[in-house]
């Protein structure tokens, strides 16, 4: 671009009279061409403008953080939207369950209140008595077998006591 034209534009720029298009022309000029000595300060300023917009930027980490925040927000929102539906579903299940139980109770009231039936296994009382006695004796013998081990322990304890009293 002609240096005369640039100087005119620069003067207009300082007066605040340039249009956006003219300012763009200045930006392009100072970023591409070696400016004449009397336009050094303008060159420096426009280079500052360029570096400012070029290097003060946000990278992908910013985008990722934002995306994660939005996704978390959406997940929460979906849950909040879904929650009333779940509540209603739970209420319906409870009502159905209660109705079924109530109906069963109503149709067959005796099942729950009747005492537990005990069925006899022997017809002859003497035979039943003999069988019971036999079972109890078996349990008793097993318990006696367990106490036999306790006698051994008692002997050991006595021996220990004797050693303690006899040796000062």
């Amino acid at each position, binding site marked *: 671009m002609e240096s005369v034209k640039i100087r005119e534009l620069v003067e207009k*720029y*300082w*007066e*605040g009279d340039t249009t*956006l298009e003219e*300012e*763009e022309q200045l930006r392009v000029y100072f970023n591409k061409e070696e400016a004449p000595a009397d336009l*050094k*300060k*303008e*060159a*420096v*300023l426009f*280079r*500052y*403008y360029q*570096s*400012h*917009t*070029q*290097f*003060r*930027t*946000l990278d992908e980490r*910013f*985008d990722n*953080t*934002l*995306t994660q*925040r*939005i*996704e978390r*927000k*959406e997940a929460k929102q979906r849950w909040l939207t879904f929650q009333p539906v779940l509540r209603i579903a739970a209420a319906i299940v409870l009502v159905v369950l209660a109705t079924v139980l109530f109906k069963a109770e109503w149709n067959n009231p005796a099942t729950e209140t009747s005492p537990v039936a005990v069925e006899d296994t022997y017809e002859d009382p003497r035979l039943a008595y003999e069988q019971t006695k036999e079972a109890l004796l078996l349990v008793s013998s097993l318990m006696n077998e367990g106490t036999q081990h306790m006698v051994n322990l008692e002997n050991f304890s006595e021996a220990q006591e004797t050693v303690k009293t006899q040796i000062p």
Partner: protein
Amino acid sequence: MVLEEFKTRVLPVKNKLYRFALRFLNNEDEAQDVVQEVFIRAWDRREELHLYRSVEAWCMQVTRNLSLNRLKSGHYRNTQELAAGHEVQHAQSPYEQTETQDVLQMIDQLLQRLPQAQQQVLQLRDMEGYAYQEISETLEMPLAQVKVNLFRARKTLREQLTKMNAYGIGQNS
């Protein structure tokens, strides 16, 4: 609007919002938090976004409001950490690069010394390429005031840069 559509239609404005928030807060983490919040609010209104004349203008307004709220709350961390981060792609020797970095940082400091309104107008116009009307709507500032602020900001910068030139700073850049 589904997430993928949101990402292609709304998310691309993120860098403009970030730089705008930085202008208020001077802290990268704080500015990022603000921009995240802006997008979350936009997502919450995703079904109404088509009603706005410009989604970008709406996002910029929310960025401005949230940034101002942070400033008022007094909990924000202004660490003045923004001097770093300018890099220049022109082929230069390491010496020239370092000097250019220094000059760019000096301009950054000059800008930060301007009144807030002037900084914001200059940023939206000269860095983001906004029309006066868009700036007026974003900053909720009358059109005439936008032009006055821009004129004053450029005038101060011109004076300061002329001084820098007089001391030989930036001659190699």
